[in-house]
């Protein structure tokens, strides 16, 4: 009983001391909060250091996406590279969970610290590839999928990728 009373008084005192602490919130439109570089906001599609788009249209992001807001169509260019014919993210459904970024094998899809995407028309929340694609490498500056993968494209044959051994002729017994 006494203990409970003392506890209440202590609570009141501790709350009163909060008169002298700084507010945790910020005055938002004038004063922006600090957002970490890895903050999960608006999604972008990045390019590799050579300026080609990184996305190889593998569909893993669309599979990983919990609210199914990513849609894309795979196409093949003449040089053998895969690319998305269209790439569409419906941001009115997106929950900014970052699963697509986790799933992406080529670091193409990345989340940025931008969350100010208000629109008066809901249709405008649907971003097409031209809106998503940026002219930069995002968080990973040196990575280029086609330089490290064994896939054969124009100008890079089998065995010519970084750290890749020459292909073995499995039909010959000679060393």
């Amino acid at each position, binding site marked *: 009983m006494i203990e409970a009373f003392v506890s209440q008084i202590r609570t009141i005192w501790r*709350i009163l001391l909060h008169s002298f602490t700084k*507010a945790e919130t910020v005055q938002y439109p004038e004063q922006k909060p600090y957002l970490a570089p890895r903050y999960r906001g608006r999604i972008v599609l990045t390019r590799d250091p050579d300026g080609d788009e990184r996305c190889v249209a593998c569909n893993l992001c669309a599979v990983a996406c919990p609210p199914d807001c990513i849609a894309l169509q795979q196409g093949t260019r003449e040089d053998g590279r895969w690319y998305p014919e269209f790439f569409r993210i419906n941001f009115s459904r997106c929950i900014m969970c970052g699963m697509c970024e986790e799933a992406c094998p080529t670091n193409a899809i990345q989340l940025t610290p931008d969350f100010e995407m208000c629109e008066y028309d809901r249709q405008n929340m649907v971003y097409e590839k031209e809106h998503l694609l940026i002219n930069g490498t995002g968080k990973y500056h040196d990575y280029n999928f086609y330089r490290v993968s064994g896939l054969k494209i124009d100008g890079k044959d089998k065995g010519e990728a970084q750290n890749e051994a020459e292909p073995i002729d499995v039909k010959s017994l000679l060393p």
Partner: protein
Amino acid sequence: MSEANLPFIGAILLTVVGGAAVLTWFERRLLGIWQDRYGPNRLGPFGILQVAADMLKLLTKHDWIPPFADRFVFVIAPTAIVISMLMAFAVVPFGPDHYLIDMNVGLLFFLAMSSLAVYSVMLGGLASNNKYALLGGLRAAAQMVSYEVFMGLSLMGVVMLSGSFSLVDIVEAQQDGWYFIPQFLGLYVFIIAGIAESHRLPFDLPEAEHELTAGFHTEYGGMKFTMFMLGEYCGLILLSCMITTLFFGGWLGPFFPPLVWFALKTFGFVCFFILLRAAIPRPRYDQLMALGWTVMLPITLINLVATGAIALWMNQA
């Protein structure tokens, strides 16, 4: 000397109702500070025009009466709390010359008026014809009736010491010592009973949002909801005024004029009640009742008997 004239009545009404309106904003700002945020600070200096914005919103809202409600009682109920709370201000002595009536039963008048407020809450809950509202009304009735018992009793120590029911006499009797020292138990009980009586947090069980959506005013909106809120904030101001008058020497104090002292003390207690709201969680309903009957009532009785005995002994010596 009493100044029972119309301008003075108008001044009191304006101060109390205006104070209650400003209090809605002030409370939110203060709660914000104590919860490490800002509160409404956008409109006007420090956000004070928020009051005007809220008022405009509430006044222009659709004044809807549910078709299943008891129309007459539904409309009457919110006015009862405002009327009874404002009536009680008639006996509050703001200064040595600033009071409407110096009734010789002023204290009883205050108790009676604050008890009448229960009708508002109960009838509002009953007339809404809604389960949550009814439960809120029931809780309000039970809570207010049981806390009334020792709210009145806790003040009897003050009456014994001053020998009068008149609030002016009670203040005059505190010239050589405010009553919060000899009557600390009475003050403690009166504060708790007063919060329960004005059903503010932490004793806002009649309108507990988590359990009863909004309790007795679930079906109320617009102007009628405003009336309930106005009554509640008037009740808060009244309670602070009464604590000032009964335990902290009313207008008495050095250097400043009496009215300033009264306003300062009252303001302090209003802040204290907002602090209570910020700090203490709401008890369960049975805990509230148990606290009332098993702790508060015995404390009050002990205080009453002890004060009586000491008063008798002092008179003999």
